[in-house]
């Protein structure tokens, strides 16, 4: 009689252990499924982020007006970038530039060429970015 009770308790403990393993497998599987579909911060690519920003500004019709006016600070004020500092430089064909070059290490640069707005005035727009 006593031996039967001990045997039943052992079986129950074993069952609990199996149940715990199954629950763990289900939870880990679910977390892996969620994790694989939603990548986090590693999607940032600072090397091309500047190019992307300047492309978007031109697509929105913002870039060309500031470039035509040589207004580097105005263009810079239209950029908001969380976690990064930034500055804009606008250079003419002669090499003369408006704007500021940052005095910081590890700076990423994005470039965009503009032929002009209403007149032919080729300009190179540079955006400098650094981590804050």
């Amino acid at each position, binding site marked *: 009689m006593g031996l039967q009770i001990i045997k039943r308790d052992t079986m129950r403990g074993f069952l609990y252990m199996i*149940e715990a393993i*199954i*629950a763990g497998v*289900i*939870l880990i599987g*679910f977390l892996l*499924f*969620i994790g694989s*579909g*939603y*990548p986090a911060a590693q*999607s*940032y*690519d*600072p*090397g*091309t*982020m500047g*190019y*992307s920003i300047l*492309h978007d500004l*031109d697509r929105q019709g913002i870039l060309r007006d500031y470039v035509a006016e040589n207004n580097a600070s105005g263009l810079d004020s239209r950029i908001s970038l969380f976690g990064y500092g930034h500055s804009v430089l606008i250079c003419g*064909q002669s090499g003369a530039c408006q704007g500021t070059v940052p005095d910081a290490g590890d700076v990423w640069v*994005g*470039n*965009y*060429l*503009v*032929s*002009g707005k*209403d*007149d*032919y005035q*080729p300009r*190179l727009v540079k955006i400098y970015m650094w981590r804050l």
Partner: protein
Amino acid sequence: MKGQFLILGAVLLCSLFFIGLPPSRPLAESPAGDMGYLAANLEKEFPHALNLGLSEGDPRGIMENFTGWVRDVAGSLLVDFSSFWMFSEPDPASGNVTIVLGNYMGTGMNVDVDLGGNRRNVFVADGDSESVTFPSVGPEYVLDVMFGSDARSFTWQRDKVSVFLLLQLERGGNIIRKEAEA
């Protein structure tokens, strides 16, 4: 086993919620690094430069100037830029069409231009442009062009300025070649 059914039910409910969300999109995309963006920038900007040239009455001069400048800027970014472009300049009064050819492929080349069986051959030095004029062109014409080892055929309108661009960017082993027609 009752607990596991509850967990499974919760997981299924959460899955339904996440399936309903749009797929994730990175904040910054890089189709081919900075070269991809540069190529897209130039593909858009060359026709714009031509339009500015037309409005200022010097499309050929401005296209030459712009291409030379782009080559210099690309060089400063360690990108070897080469280009071949051509555009039509219609003369509505006479019905003539002038085809302007710009060669920035790194070496001079002979270009064959055939407009409706009227064939011309012109040598275009590297970093230079040449033009050929075809008289009394019909309202729509087929233009066959052979430059280097490439051949292209276009159907253009006599009274409209049309342009063909070939842009090539190269850095190390990475080459991006784009063609555009407008």
